[in-house]
């Protein structure tokens, strides 16, 4: 039985927020950090409250880096019980993740590679005006907590059209999310069976059996999750220019965009709509995921083998999939670039969190293999066309009869501007952390 009253709401369900602010914090002294935490715990939403009348227009989630746990006073023995990859942090794992070149941590912004990055406070708000009120309130609160400072912050807000969730390239987003066993949510057709809670929350049975090897003490790890944070800049001007170069008319350009993603921008999957877009299909959750690859499109004539969604969720063309699923959260930042407008040089993109119970088995596998392994599906020289580390030397193969189309030297449409690993504790764990004394 999932403890909905102890698990932070963040990975269970989304509050009805159209805006958010991420504040990256440092604790100059443990007492200040614990004071801040003590005062904010009551604002942290639980999974239980998300469906109740307690729902407020304001909502907070808090998570900590490994050095943040140390800065709060967690004992060395306890710190050592956390997994190696979390202890190292995302920047140190860049080679494993394949985030090299322009995506290298040397270029990241916001102080995210600093050992002084200790925590993140995610402030959700119903709209931008409410977010501003939250920001001011948190600023006032921080001023009362000695030694707690904001290293950097990022404002997020939904972009038009507001009738569906879109990212800056115009693709419909949030179409495929795993369903957690025990939440009572029924998976949509094609989404696969519910996944054991232990794949996302520590202390529960996972797809392999009972929980084992959890960080200690149990009160700290139980109901917690790991988060991989990614700030991914989207080069909308370069993306649109690429479509213009590779498609002679609007229809061809839309098809190229669909081939890169594996779905039309409406969300309609190419496997079910290989020739023409079908916006009604894309908007229908009962149909938009109801497909597979091994039998329906084994050679990628509809959805290329290297398309983004085929890499990030190979469905029935990979094994052990129930142990690779992750929960994605986050949203868009930066202003939308209206269609037809030239690139304005302003940063815009997606700031996302990947939630899981094992960073190395779930998130790092996805980055290392699905996103950045050039030989994934024996493609030889390709990476994820949207999300992979591109430097102009990789290709994109689009299977086609009678002759396939190969795009050489794919443009980088995205750049990783920052990332970090966090631990998202349960409410009891937050109270435990708030009452620590130095050295545990």
């Amino acid at each position: 039985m999932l403890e909905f009253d102890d698990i932070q709401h963040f990975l269970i369900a989304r509050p009805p927020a159209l805006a958010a602010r991420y504040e990256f914090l440092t604790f100059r002294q443990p007492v200040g950090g614990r004071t801040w935490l003590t005062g904010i715990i009551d604002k942290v939403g639980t999974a239980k409250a998300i469906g109740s009348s307690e729902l407020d227009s304001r909502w907070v989630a808090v998570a900590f880096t490994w050095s943040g746990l140390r800065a709060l006073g967690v004992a060395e023995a306890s710190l050592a019980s956390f997994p190696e990859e979390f202890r190292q942090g995302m920047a140190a794992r860049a080679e494993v993740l394949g985030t090299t070149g322009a995506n290298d941590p040397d270029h990241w912004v916001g102080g995210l590679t600093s050992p002084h990055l200790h925590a993140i406070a995610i402030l959700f708000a119903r709209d931008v005006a409410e977010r501003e009120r939250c920001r001011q309130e948190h600023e006032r609160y921080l001023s009362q907590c000695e030694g707690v400072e904001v290293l950097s912050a990022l404002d997020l807000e939904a972009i038009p059209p507001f009738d569906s969730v879109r990212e800056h390239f115009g693709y419909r987003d949030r179409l495929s999310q795993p369903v957690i066993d025990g939440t009572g949510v029924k998976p949509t057709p094609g989404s696969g069976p519910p996944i054991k809670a232990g794949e996302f929350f520590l202390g529960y049975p996972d797809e392999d059996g009972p929980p084992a090897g959890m960080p200690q003490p149990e009160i700290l790890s139980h109901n917690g999750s790991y988060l991989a944070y990614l700030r991914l800049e989207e080069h909308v001007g370069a993306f649109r220019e690429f479509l213009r170069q590779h498609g002679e008319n609007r229809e061809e350009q839309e098809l190229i965009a669909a081939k890169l993603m594996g779905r039309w921008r409406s969300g309609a999957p190419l496997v079910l709509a290989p020739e023409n877009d079908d916006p009604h299909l894309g908007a229908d959750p009962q149909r938009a995921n109801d497909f597979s690859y091994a039998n329906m499109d084994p050679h990628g004539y509809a959805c290329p083998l290297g398309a983004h969604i085929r890499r990030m969720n190979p469905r029935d063309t990979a094994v052990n999939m129930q142990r690779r699923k992750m929960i994605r959260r986050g949203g868009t930042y930066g202003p939308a670039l209206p269609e037809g407008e030239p690139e304005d040089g302003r940063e815009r993109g997606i700031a996302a969190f990947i939630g899981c119970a094992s960073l190395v088995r779930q998130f790092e596998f996805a980055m290392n293999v699905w996103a950045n392994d050039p030989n994934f599906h024996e493609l030889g020289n390709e990476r994820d066309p949207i999300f992979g580390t591109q430097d102009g030397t990789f290709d994109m193969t689009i299977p086609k009869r009678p002759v396939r189309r190969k795009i050489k030297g794919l443009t980088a449409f995205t750049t990783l501007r920052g990332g970090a690993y966090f631990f998202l504790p349960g409410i009891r764990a937050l109270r435990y952390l708030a009452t620590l004394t130095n050295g545990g």
Partner: protein
Amino acid sequence: MATQVMPKRDLPQPPTVASSRENDWTKPVAMAIPKEGYFELEQGRYGPIFPKTPACYGFSVVAKVKAGREQAIRDYGTKIEEAVKGNPSVLAPLKLHYLRWVLFDVGSGLHFMYQGIFDTDFDKYLEDAVALFVKTGITTVFVNLEGWPEDWKTNLQAVINFFREHQCSSFLEYGEYPYVSADEIKKALKLKASFSGMLDLMQ
């Protein structure tokens, strides 16, 4: 009757074709490998990545057999044979070319060698491989080996450590048709079979 061997220089040479960055299957390649097992340290999820060689990826895991367990290991050879007969794709996730299981004793007790040649970097798919080992019962071979973690059912990291610690890197690997994957070979044979069938129909 022995087949007549043509002098190699007289053999028709296939065109030089490179199907990926490193791959020219027409030229045999030998590769000497440093003691560490890799040329440059490239960090994988669980440790250094071992390079793809002309003989593709692979490993040679060598471990001492626990006293009195030889027959249990030998018996498992038959079980794998039956499993593959029953479901030819049971080992497909490993992307194997070949498996060689060897028992030997050169004076320091009985040792088991599990040598696999495959097409994927083992580090990338370690969890999938371990899951398959559990599903097919290959782990029942490993429990007969010294050093195999007692808590292997719940401690993936310990299992991974066992493989990495008992891996003996090659110092030479050779490929007559270097870097070619099993899938590519199967595709070529399928194409050849299709052509043969077509030509037969045209007789």
